[in-house]
């Protein structure tokens, strides 16, 4: 039996919940939550913790040294570091418009990296 602690971010209460997980990886018990939405969030967060990655990438041929980017959908939390190292290699060249795909299918996840600002010379 393993215990995992997750803080719920559903409301300002920030309930500190504890999940008991059996050796199959199934959640057998959750304690510490105060509402059913919180319970749902925490369960989902345990099973599939995902995050939107926001970052900057370098540019070339632009007065602006960096372009802010994001993943258009969340990716697995565990892959954030790997994703960051992929982004280091990218260079954006103007013109770029907000929403433009900079790198499709990041880490074969089906998620694209898109620009969140315009880039001019």
């Amino acid at each position, binding site marked *: 039996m393993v215990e995992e602690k997750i803080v719920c971010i559903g409301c300002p209460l920030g309930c500190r919940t504890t999940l008991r997980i059996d050796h199959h990886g199934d959640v057998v018990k959750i304690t510490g939550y105060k509402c059913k939405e919180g319970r749902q969030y925490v369960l989902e967060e345990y099973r599939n913790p995902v995050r939107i990655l926001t970052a900057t990438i370098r540019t070339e041929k632009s007065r602006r040294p*960096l372009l802010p980017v994001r993943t258009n959908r969340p990716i697995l939390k565990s892959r954030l570091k790997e994703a960051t*190292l992929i982004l*280091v290699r990218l260079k954006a060249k103007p013109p770029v418009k907000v929403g433009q795909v900079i790198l499709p299918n990041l880490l074969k996840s089906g998620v694209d990296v898109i620009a969140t600002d315009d880039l001019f010379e």
Partner: protein
Amino acid sequence: MAQMETEVLIIGGGVLGAAVARELSRYKGDVLLVEKEADFGWGSTKTNMCIVCQGGDTLEFRPEYHRSKLVWDSIPLMEPLCQELDVPFKKVGELALIRNNEELSKFQKLKSRAEKLGLTGHQFIDQDSLRQMEPNITREAIGALHDPHIAIVDPVRLTIGLIENASQNGVKVMTETEILRISREANQFEVETNRGPVKCRFIVNAAGTSVDKIARLVNSDDFVLYPIRGYVGILDKNLGGLIKHEIHMRPDAPGQMNILTPSVHGNLFFGTTMQPALRGDCSVTGRIAEIGLQNVRKIFPDLSEKDIIHSFAGFLMFRNWEVGWHECVVQASQKVPRFISICIGYPGVSAAPAAAREVTELLRREGLRLETNERFIPIRKAPPVFNELPEEQQKKLIAKDSRYGHVVCRCETVSEGEIVEAIRHGATTLDGIKFRTRAGMGRCQGGFCTPRVVKILARELGLSEEKITKKGRESRLLLYKSKDLLEAQL
């Protein structure tokens, strides 16, 4: 590194070294001034309280002391000097607060002593008049002694003005130059610096907190100095109009001076707590800050911690601390010919004009030939301060150079044009820009303007932004370029 040769080497670019340089530039002959830091006035000068004794403070001093005489002789010189150098000088007057009869009788004694010396204009102010003159100060004061002559200046601007005028008139100056060794030859000194050797005939040792260290290099430390640390706080400009005079309260405990004064830039400054400390340790402890605030609240009770936008500690070098009000060092060495040391402690700024003349006289006695420089120009024009100019002139300035229309420091309204001008005049660091233009001295303390100032410095100096420092040497601001740390992990 080229071999440098000069007649007079001035060690130290604080207010005293700079004043000597300017004074010597009235005469022909080679003068070189070297300064350890990246800009001028960064030692004791910049932590000064900005007050110029115009006679009043000498009430406290013993008139028989050398230092008092220097201050006295400087009185007629300071205002014209500031006008010539185009640096601020503002007569605000001083109110020495009287809280009880004991203080009253003390001040009466001091006043009569001053009058015997020929110092006039002091007046006792009663409680009602005091209320009218300064409605915001403590109700505890039953009156005050008013000295109308006390003025305020900006010591770093004054120092830079002196340096620039000296340079205009032929003096060579070098920053980031540190003295390593001095050896005595037959008729000259061989000085080793981190930037190469310098041969010179005369040395003026004006090295502030290192004056005794430099003197030791030629075995001429025939004086002992004690570093005394004072604490200065700067208050938000919003309070600027609330106090009009320099206000002084007698210390309750020895070593706790208590001064609150307007500054030439519209802030209020307060100064407090003087205590012996390890030289170079400019750190401010929590306890000192607490005492400082407690003390200044005795003068201005409505002050809160929130009103302090910045605070710092600075050093004064004192001689014979145990004696109380003490002597200063302005002397030719007893052991080494043509070696003059100067260190005044408090009030160095006020005494500078006369001290410079005295040093010149000492040099003459040591054999320096003083031939008047007919081409001496006493007038130096300061770079324009955009937010002090009338609108018509602001428009003209922008029309001439559009960078004056780009405001970079919003708290002090400092334009890019002024920053570029400061760089042209020798600033190479963030602090250099701060002291010369005030960018970064406002209530946000550089939060908004720092990235922009760094960019301008890099551009004008032709350097990458990561080479820009806060105050020279290893004080770089930006250690890594974006993604460099990540690339190292690839």
